[in-house]
């Protein structure tokens, strides 16, 4: 698997760290049930103005329901939603200053591109002149000036996606909701569009909320990511924090690839923790802030790209080193993933960048190798 790109961390933009900052959108103890199924379970979330927030999770985790609650298509079973401090309860979707870009785009098939974009503006009762100039502005924003008279069925998937984006932005909403906006595009176009979305958000200075199951997409576009499972948010943090300091095994495994070794804490001094792994039959050291104490069961997790492979045992005593056998090599082009069998029941993965053109790798199948990593590369997971 390719290395996960870290999202653009705008260090100057950290409103969630400022206790005086008022949230722009606030979900307060929201629960939504469909019959006996709990889609959203007592969830609270604060989103700040001009934030690009991502709701990330698998299907059925409640992320789309949360977005639909904000748009007004669903009513919460209990709890409140605030926009700029105003309770949205009882406000119908057509009166909320929130626009949504639908996963299916939901373009009106009986209207051409121009009419689709102008639809929301007409509803606002703007003058014909103003509608025309705003529509034109939106068309140039998404670079579709030449397609104004086309009907949706005469456009490609990528063009339709842009029309849907232009239509949802035309009304200059306070919040733009993006429901899996790029799911239908091919990989190349998707990556391009992700960058365009970031630029657009910075240019328009709007608050964006994106729902996606694609972790790379969330990492690329979002300022903060809420990882969701079973109607709850497991972790809400910046892409960097989510990747480097996941708070649970679910988050760690959901974002990127990770090796997890179960064990028991045998020694602890401030952040220096020693863990005994029964599978490996040895001690591992890690420097990571954790609330777990000596005797607690915990897991050590290491990202494959933070592991090194060598024939010789590393001399530095502070690193962890275990011996194993090369079981499998997955050549990805930019990197290769080595599957190293370190015990009868345990195979760990290490990523090695392919820095030369040589196809013949020095380390090959069945080689006995040393797998090593620094003590500050690992993470302690307690749940």
């Amino acid at each position, binding site marked *: 698997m390719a290395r996960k790109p870290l999202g653009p961390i705008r260090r100057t933009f950290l409103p969630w760290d400022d206790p005086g900052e008022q949230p722009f959108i606030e979900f307060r103890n929201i629960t939504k049930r469909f019959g006996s199924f709990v889609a959203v379970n007592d969830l609270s979330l604060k989103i700040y103005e001009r934030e690009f927030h991502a709701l990330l999770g698998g299907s059925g985790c409640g992320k789309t329901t949360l977005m639909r609650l904000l748009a007004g298509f669903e009513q919460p079973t209990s709890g409140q939603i605030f926009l700029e401090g105003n309770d949205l309860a009882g406000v*119908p979707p057509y*009166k909320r200053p929130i*626009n949504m870009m639908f996963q299916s785009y939901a373009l009106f*098939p009986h209207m051409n591109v121009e009419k689709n974009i102008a*639809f929301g503006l007409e*509803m*606002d009762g703007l003058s014909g002149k103003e509608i025309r100039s705003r529509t034109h502005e939106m068309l140039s924003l998404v670079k579709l000036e030449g397609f104004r008279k086309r009907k949706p069925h005469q456009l490609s998937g990528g063009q339709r996606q842009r029309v849907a984006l232009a239509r949802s932005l035309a*009304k200059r909403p306070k919040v733009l909701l993006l429901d899996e906006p790029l799911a239908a595009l091919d990989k190349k176009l998707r990556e391009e569009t992700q960058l365009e979305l970031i630029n657009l958000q910075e240019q328009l200075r709007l608050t964006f909320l994106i729902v996606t199951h694609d972790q790379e997409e969330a990492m690329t576009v979002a300022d903060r990511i809420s990882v969701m499972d079973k109607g709850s948010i497991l972790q809400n943090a910046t892409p960097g924090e989510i990747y480097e300091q996941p708070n649970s095994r679910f988050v760690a495994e959901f974002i990127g690839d990770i090796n997890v070794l179960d064990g028991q804490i045998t020694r602890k001094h401030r952040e220096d923790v020693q863990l005994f792994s029964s599978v490996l039959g040895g001690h591992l050291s890690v420097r990571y802030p954790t609330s777990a104490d000596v005797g607690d069961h915990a897991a050590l997790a290491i990202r494959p790209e933070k592991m090194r492979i060598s024939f010789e045992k590393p001399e530095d005593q502070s690193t962890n080193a275990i011996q194993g056998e090369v079981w499998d090599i997955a050549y990805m082009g930019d990197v290769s993933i080595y599957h190293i069998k370190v015990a009868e029941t345990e195979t760990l993965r290490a990523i090695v960048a392919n820095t030369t053109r040589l196809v013949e790798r020095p380390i090959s199948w069945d080689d006995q190798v040393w797998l090593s990593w620094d003590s500050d590369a690992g993470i302690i997971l307690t749940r």
Partner: protein
Amino acid sequence: MTETNLFPKDLTRSETTPPLRHEPEAPENTPTNPVRGWGRFALICVPYFWLLLFFFIPFLIVAKISLSQAAIAIPPYLPLMDWSKGVMGLWEVAKSWSLDNYIWLKEDALYWQAYTSSLKIAFLSTVLTLLVGFPIAYGMARAPRAWHTTLVMMVILPFWTSFLIRVYAWIGILKTDGLLNQALLFTGVINEPLIILNTSTAVYVGIVYSYLPFMVLPLYSSLEKLDTTLIEAAEDLGCPPWKTFWRVTVPLAMPGMIAGCFLVFIPALGEFVIPDLLGGSSTLMIGKTLWIEFFSNRDWPVASAVAIVLLGLLIVPIMMFQRHETRRNEGDM
């Protein structure tokens, strides 16, 4: 003779002889093709042959009769073709063709009134059927998916009873001492029985009832395909529900509405049974006039002329509509 020795021979003579007869056929006659080619041709021919045999030829016969004159004979009109005189006979007959029947239609106010009255009744009952049918179809399309088959069955179910019996049943409901009046008198809504039977109201009731499934089914199929996210998208963009209905639901249900309206309007225009049974003598409709001309007056040529004009009245709007549709689909209207 095989293909291989035919070609060089023909090519040598190409300057003096007409173009090669076999040349265009050559690719078609490759060993694999002929059967498939013929099969396809035969398949296409079937519907055309059907139309020719059961629509176009009867139409020509009717058109021909409409140009003839009534006579006391069997069949009751002057013969149009005298095959015994050959080609000359054909010419003789062609000279005797006349538009007298059409002129007659124009001169007698009865026909004109029958046409306009039919158009009015057909138009109004189409509108009424649409008004009644739309909510039904909408409700069906929005019902839980598991119910759809049952609901469609319920719409179709009346067809299992004879059309004639169903219209007769309405007499029992609408007549002065019928079910409707009895119910209304009993509940005290009215003091005097309403006179509905043998009025145009009864005709409207009969037509709307009889043709409702033809309106509901195409409407249902249009509305059922309608993506509900489009409704949400409209609301999301600031469109209140009632406006969404006019701006999104109705335009997208248009194909079904148009199909349903045609399916109701066309048969309603020529309807004969319903006005005859429910409308009494006061309701004038072209279908009834046609019947009287054919069977009571035995004036087949005038009846044929009535039928031809009726066909013209129907075909013109359909053709206009189709041209409009093609243009709308191609370009940006």
